[in-house]
């Protein structure tokens, strides 16, 4: 099944910045896709369209639902969005309340909410954290908790904006393991090309609001010339393999 079908998407910010220019692509269900590109290329803007946080010109279908006013609520239930800054995602006094926020909005009863929160915490490896306040957690734990807020809603597609940015190695590894184990459709934006190589089968390279290339992760992420033309570099793991042994 096609999870996302984007046809001629075009988006400009109110200040006139043309963020996305005539973008078309498809994402299949259970596919793991990384959107890469330099700063300001339109990655995060594109990601927020899937959850209808922003509305672009053109047509966007999410699991065959056309994104319009009528289907907005259904699409929000199908697509979970994890923001780059976990402090934007966690706004309640306790982790429990933060994770329960989504399931409560879905209309689940208290028992189901309890269960959803418990499962989400277990899923991201934060069991026992429900009564803690987000401001007592480390950045990495907050990032995991913000993923749990979305997992608790059991969406069919999870989109993540820079999931490994500012993380220490241990938490980065945890998120990579979670991404690898997840059976959901995953769309993420990232500058961490090693993580993209480890977790995603497919990559879309964006630059200046346009798709430069769309293909297999290994083909794109190992193409040094293509990456350098777009202000990117080969993943560090590949660079290390190429560099002579001292």
């Amino acid at each position: 099944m096609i999870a996302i079908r984007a046809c001629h998407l075009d988006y400009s910010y109110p200040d006139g910045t043309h963020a996305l220019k005539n973008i078309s692509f498809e994402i299949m269900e259970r596919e793991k896709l990384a959107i890469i590109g330099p700063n300001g290329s339109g990655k995060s803007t594109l990601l927020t369209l899937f959850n209808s946080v922003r509305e672009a010109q053109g047509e966007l279908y999410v699991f065959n639902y056309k994104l319009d006013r009528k289907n907005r609520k259904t699409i929000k239930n199908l697509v979970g969005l994890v923001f780059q800054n976990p402090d934007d995602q966690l706004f309640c006094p306790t982790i429990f309340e933060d994770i329960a926020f989504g399931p409560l909005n879905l209309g689940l009863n208290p028992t189901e909410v309890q269960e959803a929160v418990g499962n989400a915490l277990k899923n991201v490896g934060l069991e026992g954290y429900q009564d803690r306040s987000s401001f007592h957690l480390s950045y990495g734990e907050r990032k995991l908790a913000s993923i749990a807020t979305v997992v608790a809603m059991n969406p069919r597609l999870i989109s993540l904006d820079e999931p490994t940015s500012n993380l220490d190695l241990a938490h980065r590894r945890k998120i990579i393991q979670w991404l690898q184990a997840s059976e959901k459709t995953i769309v993420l934006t990232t500058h961490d090309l090693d993580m993209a190589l480890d977790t995603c089968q497919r990559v879309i390279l964006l630059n200046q609001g346009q798709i430069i290339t769309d293909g297999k992760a290994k083909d794109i992420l190992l193409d040094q010339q293509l990456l350098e033309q777009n202000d990117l570099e080969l993943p560090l793991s590949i660079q290390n393999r190429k560099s002579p042994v001292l």
Partner: protein
Amino acid sequence: MKHEFLDHHRKGNSVIHLADPRLKIIMMVIYVIVVVAIPSNANKYYIHLILIGILFALISGVPLLHYLTKLIKIYSMVLLIFVFIPFFPSGSENYYQLIKLKIYPSGLNKFIQINFKTILIVFISIILTTTTDFMHLLKGLEKMKVPQVTLSILSFMYRFIFLIIDEIERMIIAFRSRYIKLSYLNRMRIFAKQIGVLFIRTYRRGEQIFQAMESRGFHGKIYIMDDLYWQKKDSYLLIVFIFLLFFPIFLLSLLIA
């Protein structure tokens, strides 16, 4: 949002903490009506109302100093509204001269009255907000049929307090990191300019949080897991409160009779 100190007394085991938020709202409304309605010459009744406020503050188990600090902060802002009253006469009357300012006795009297009433109302509101989880307060208001729009506004207002503090902290750190010794006036100039920036930054962060809420199915209604149940003890507490509040009036009417 790491400002637990703003409402860290919201959880507690006192009778006041455990009372239904609706009861606390009702008690506060009755108290406010009584404070507003009492005549200006009922000085003894003011003392009675102060004692009731203090009694509730003591029962709540929250340190009085905490209430007092909050009271001073809020009162200093409210004071600006009526600080000029002593300078306005109600008719032609004598006045006291204080340097170049004319203070009228009627204005001064009104000022003292409003002061007392304000302090009492602010004090009882602080007891309510300190001892009640904000989300439960919203739930209580929802159960009392307060429109959803009002609840949403209150909810966002609450979140914005934390956001503004967050942003102020960040800006102060950024300022201090490049701080060169400046005169007080120059520092104030910089701060004045930063206020505009602060509101833009807070607005942007608020928008991002709203997007995060919207992306998780928020569409204007606040859902709270714990439902509220009015218990017998809430009814008893209400009766005790009304009795305490009106006891002097009842006693006076008996004496007159």
